[in-house]
């Protein structure tokens, strides 16, 4: 039975990747779980320089979800390359780095630094963080800006380039195509949905930043729909992200056309979630007599889709 997947020139031993912002720099989980069991991991978003991020409170629970406004607190790409990458080299997993910038030039500069660093398997372009005033979703909410950022990152590296798309748009397929045309190797779909939770006693937002990004099971049907739309719009592989906490959730994204998935908020509930998902995937494959997980990808029987229509 084979769980291995290939995408964007990467070979992953299984389709499970830890999602950016929910897994720190990976090394925080040393001693808690075996990072080599993961298909890959995506680092917390990194700028050129360290960032303080948003004021507190930064997280709040909502029904089946988590609303956050962390604001991309981070050590900066140079400290990551110097201090973290050597430690991650001990693990047999694909290390993807989430790249941020206030400007197009900063995205390119961060990418250039990573391009020369040993142990980086690829870069995920963060054009979808809703919790920063510049960059982030401002780039991911305008197809021309998306094209510009992805092109600049593309020119800065030969590593696989994977834009992470925002769900806070009317038609994600426009952004998927803009990314593909700009030279992206794959897409991560989706980032968090913009939300607002209000403390009715104080009549203030419950997050210090105001609005936040919603994640967790609450967003999964939206994420499946948008990943499915993106996968139909482009020829490059799509990595599904959004509310995954079980094998069944993973399978939804694979059947919808995703080549791999990222697990995010579920890490906070159970850092051992990967073992449960892997066991569940194997059980499903046995039951359906599937030898290779790739056989499942894009097998959705959607009403109205004629054979060979795509």
């Amino acid at each position, binding site marked *: 039975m084979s769980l291995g997947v290939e995408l964007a020139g990467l070979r992953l031993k299984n389709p499970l990747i830890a999602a950016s912002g*929910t897994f*720190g720099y990976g090394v*925080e989980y040393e001693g808690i779980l075996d990072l080599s069991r993961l298909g890959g991991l995506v680092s917390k978003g990194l700028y050129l320089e360290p*960032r303080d991020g948003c004021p507190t409170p*930064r*997280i709040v629970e909502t029904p089946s979800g988590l609303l*956050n406004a962390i604001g991309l*607190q981070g050590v900066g790409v140079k400290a990551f390359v110097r201090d973290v990458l050597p430690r991650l080299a001990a693990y047999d997993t694909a290390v993807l780095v989430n790249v941020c910038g206030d400007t197009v030039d900063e995205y390119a500069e961060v990418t250039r630094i990573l391009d020369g660093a040993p142990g980086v398997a690829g870069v995920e372009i963060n054009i979808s963080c809703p919790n920063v005033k510049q960059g982030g979703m401002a780039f991911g909410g305008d197809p021309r800006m998306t094209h510009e950022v992805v092109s600049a990152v593309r020119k800065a590296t030969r590593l696989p380039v994977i834009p992470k798309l925002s769900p806070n748009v009317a038609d994600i397929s426009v952004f998927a195509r803009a990314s593909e045309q700009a030279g992206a190797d794959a897409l991560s779909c989706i980032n968090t949905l913009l939300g607002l939770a209000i403390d009715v006693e104080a009549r203030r937002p419950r997050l210090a930043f105001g609005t936040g990004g919603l994640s967790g099971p609450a967003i999964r049907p939206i994420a499946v729909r948008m990943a499915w739309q993106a996968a139909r719009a482009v020829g490059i592989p799509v990595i599904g992200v959004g509310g995954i906490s079980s094998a069944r959730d993973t399978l939804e994204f694979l059947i919808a056309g995703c080549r791999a998935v990222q697990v995010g908020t579920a890490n*906070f509930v159970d850092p051992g979630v990967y073992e449960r998902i892997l066991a569940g995937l194997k059980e499903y494959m046995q039951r359906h007599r599937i030898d290779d997980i790739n056989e499942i990808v894009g097998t959705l029987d959607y009403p109205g889709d004629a054979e060979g229509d795509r």
Partner: protein
Amino acid sequence: MGSGSLALADLREGELAQCLGPLGRPFTAPPEGHEALLVAGGYGIAPFYLFSQELLRDGRRACVFYGGRTAGDLQLRELFERLAVTLVPATEDGSLGHAGRVTAPLEAHLDASQGPSTLYACGPEAMLHAVARVAARRGLRAQVSLDPWMGCGVGTCLGCVVWIQRAGEARPKYRCACTEGPVFDASTVVWPGDSTSAAARSGDAG
């Protein structure tokens, strides 16, 4: 009570719950010869039961100041009455012990005390801040247990950060309460509302 505490309270005998721990940094014993003064507000009493037992086992002296709004808030006082520690209750409505804030009997104790003391505090932020001010005024060390919302417990979500400025640092740094705390040296905490913390918070909200 929050949903997590309720879920724990709903467990029946023999049921299993998954647990990740121990996490973070705990209270640490006072220097030799110091009396440990433990200041608790409401649910903040929880860590001090085991900590008191540990202190007593090591032959240390401990005194617990237990504050709440009313007598009903001081739920665990019977447990402490079985230990060889002094328990000083304080209630804001005067229904039990000292009438008023818990820091008043703490200050009275410090005024009367001959030897050196180390302060420990767990409870609402305003109380922790008040204990930190008492410590600063008297030149004492205090350890405070901060309680921001935590998402992951292992330093990855960055949800529970607090401004901490350690000796020699030019400016405060956001540090995770889950891994570098929840117990911090009170003199390193930049408290909300302090002038220094206002400057720090306007720093880089990006």
